[in-house]
Every structure is written in structure tokens, then in C-alpha cells.
């Protein structure tokens, strides 16, 4: 599954939900997980002098020093840059949507697709631990969509996106939306190669979420405040939320929207249109 993750082998299956909504599970015996775990342990075949060695080693721990200065997430970051290059070459605008579960990522996406699909081509990569429910919702709009079930994994990584994008083969000049696993912590560390990271927070959450989970807001360029149609019924101070978000990330661009009523969605659409033209 993951370049970096330690999940067990059968949990990172990629399922492809076709345009007609039928799931045609190409059960790729995905190389996601098949980095042969066996090899690690068994490089014994050289010479079996373990015990011999051990006896010598105690106490004078010379050892050889290997200076690495290597980024721990280097592999993920390199592959993310490759994804970014692929998107660039095809004039694709790729966004990575992140939020807590239940902020309305899928609803915003459904509304956006329904309203813009006649003028912009979309393809979608859905990340969840289990089920194809979100991909099914998107497939109902006749949009190419892939579901990645991460199993126990808590985030998507750039290798999953690289594989998914090859499968999806998005059109030149289109928008690729990656809906990350609902989690405000882990996905912040993993660059997927997106052009913009979009963090979503709904007004039914706390205003202080940006400072409770600052890494996610620090690493995002766009913030969508969702469910603003509910504001009359809630004690929620939008300005306070915006101040917190801007304290963490003073350059973050904020849109106030409601996927249900459609309020504020126009500005978000203008942003998407102008991002494609660039």
C-alpha cells in the first residue's frame, strides 16, 4: 500500500468504480503491498558466522559510521514531485481535500461536480479506510472515480496517487480531486503532488480547530468553511475561526460555502476556473 506505511498486505486494494457506477474491481494484486517482507530477515545465505561475530563485537563497539542526512519522507516527496510533473505536463489542476470526518468533503465535491461538469472535466480519487460509499456517490454523477481503501492506514501517500492516476488517465486540462482520508493529523505530513491543498472545516466544529490541529492549516493553501447555512442555529463565530486560521497560516485563502444551499459556492467555482487557466 504505502511507500512508508507498515500496513499488512491485503489492506491496500484499489477498486475502480466505473462510469456507470458499477464497481469493476480490477483486483490488481497491487504492488502497493508486495514489497517482499521476506527478504529483510533472510540475507543469511552469505556465511553463517553470526555467533562467531557476536562474540568478538562486545565491548569495543567501533562500527563504521555512515552519514546519511537523509529525509525520512524522501521517497514520498520524490514521488509527489513526479505526480506534480505529470499534472503540470497535462495542464491538470490537482487538489487534495483534507478535513475531519464529517466536514462535508464529499458533499462539496458532489455539488461542485454537478454544477461544473458541463464546462470542466473532473476525475476523483477517494481515500477511505473502508467501503466504496464515497466513490459510489461520485460515480452517480458519471465521473471517473477510483476508491483507495487504506485499511488501517490513516492517510493517502504519493505512491497510491501515482498508481491511481495511471489507472484513471485524467484528460488534459481537467481537474483531479483527491479526497483524503478524514483525519486532520496524519495526511498533513504526506505531499501527494497536488497543486493546492484544501482544508475543510464546518461550522458545527469548534472555532479553535486551526490552532488545535495547526499542521494541517499550516500546510494548506485554501480553507473552505462549510455548512454556513446552519449559522443562524449555532453559536459559532466565523470571524474567530478565520482569525485562528490566519494566525496559523497568514496567506491561507478562505471561502465560506454551503454545499447544501449552494451559498458561496460561486466564489469557489471562480477560483477553480481561474486555477485551470493559469
Amino acid at each position: 500500500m504505502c511507500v512508508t506505511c507498515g500496513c499488512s498486505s491485503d489492506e491496500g486494494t484499489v477498486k475502480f468504480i466505473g462510469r456507470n457506477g458499477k464497481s469493476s474491481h480490477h483486483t490488481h494484486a497491487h504492488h502497493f503491498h508486495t514489497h517482499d517482507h521476506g527478504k529483510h530477515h533472510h540475507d543469511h545465505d552469505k556465511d553463517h558466522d553470526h555467533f562467531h561475530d557476536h562474540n568478538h563485537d562486545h565491548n569495543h563497539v567501533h562500527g563504521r559510521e555512515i552519514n546519511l542526512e537523509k529525509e525520512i519522507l524522501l521517497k514520498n516527496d520524490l514521488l509527489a514531485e513526479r505526480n506534480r510533473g505529470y499534472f503540470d505536463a497535462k495542464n491538470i489542476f490537482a487538489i487534495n481535500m483534507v478535513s475531519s470526518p464529517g466536514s462535508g468533503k464529499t458533499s462539496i465535491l458532489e455539488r461542485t461536480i454537478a454544477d461544473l461538469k458541463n464546462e470542466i472535466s473532473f476525475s476523483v480519487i477517494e481515500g477511505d479506510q473502508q467501503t466504496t460509499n464515497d466513490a459510489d456517490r461520485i460515480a452517480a454523477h458519471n465521473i471517473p472515480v477510483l476508491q483507495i481503501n487504506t485499511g488501517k492506514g490513516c492517510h493517502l501517500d504519493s505512491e497510491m496517487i501515482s498508481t491511481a492516476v495511471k489507472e484513471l488517465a485524467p484528460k488534459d486540462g481537467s481537474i483531479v480531486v483527491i479526497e483524503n482520508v478524514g483525519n486532520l493529523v496524519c495526511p498533513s505530513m504526506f505531499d501527494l503532488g497536488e497543486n493546492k491543498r484544501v482544508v475543510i472545516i464546518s461550522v458545527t466544529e469548534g472555532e479553535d480547530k486551526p490552532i488545535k490541529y495547526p499542521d494541517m492549516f499550516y500546510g494548506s493553501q485554501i480553507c473552505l468553511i462549510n455548512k454556513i447555512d446552519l449559522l443562524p442555529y449555532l453559536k459559532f463565530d466565523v470571524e474567530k475561526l478565520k482569525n485562528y486560521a490566519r494566525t496559523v497560516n497568514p496567506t491561507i485563502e478562505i471561502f465560506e460555502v454551503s454545499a447544501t444551499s449552494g451559498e458561496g459556492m460561486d466564489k469557489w467555482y471562480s477560483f477553480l476556473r481561474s486555477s485551470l487557466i493559469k
Partner: protein
Amino acid sequence: MHELSIATSIIKSAEVELIENKAESIKEIFLEIGKLSGVEIASLTFVWELAAKGTALENSKVNIHEPEGFARCGECSTEYHLEKIFDVCPNCKSPFKEILKGKELKIIKLIID
């Protein structure tokens, strides 16, 4: 629990080095994990044993250096200590900053045998 991913990633990188250097074992590993890196050292330590089991790092000593956060103000250039990523400049209260230290996530070196 991305710390498990981080641990696994560290172990894989180290094992590649072990093979490339035709070494038998990794005695020590030195990591640099900044206080603003997003990795909880306690969580990493917690999953390390599990992740390292059966690998070349099972018995290795793990040394972790945790650089403190430092930033330079984007407006008045004051350099200041960053406890939290959203701390503002103590001089001019600006939130604009360049983070100089604290985001490190690196394998510094290995001692192999």
C-alpha cells in the same frame, strides 16, 4: 498514527543502507525529529519496537535529537523561539514567518558493523 509509517520508512531506508554497505548489523541510528515536525516522539517510541521487530534495527540503539523551533519574522526579521507553529513575532506580533528550525525529519547517520 502516522508514526508507524514514519518508523517503517526509517527502518526501510536503514536496511537499504545496510545492504549497500554490505554490513551485518546496525548498532546505532541517529535521527533528527524537530519539535514542529508533526511527529510525536512518544508515539514513535511506542510503535518502534513493533515496527523494528524482525528487522535489522531490532536491537539497534536509537538516538533522537529534537531541534527546537526557530523562526525569522517576515516583517521585522526578528529571530524567535517557536514553541507552537502559530506563535507570532514577539517584537511586532506578525504571523508571517520563515521557519528556520524545528521541521526536521531526517536520518542523520548509522553506525554499522
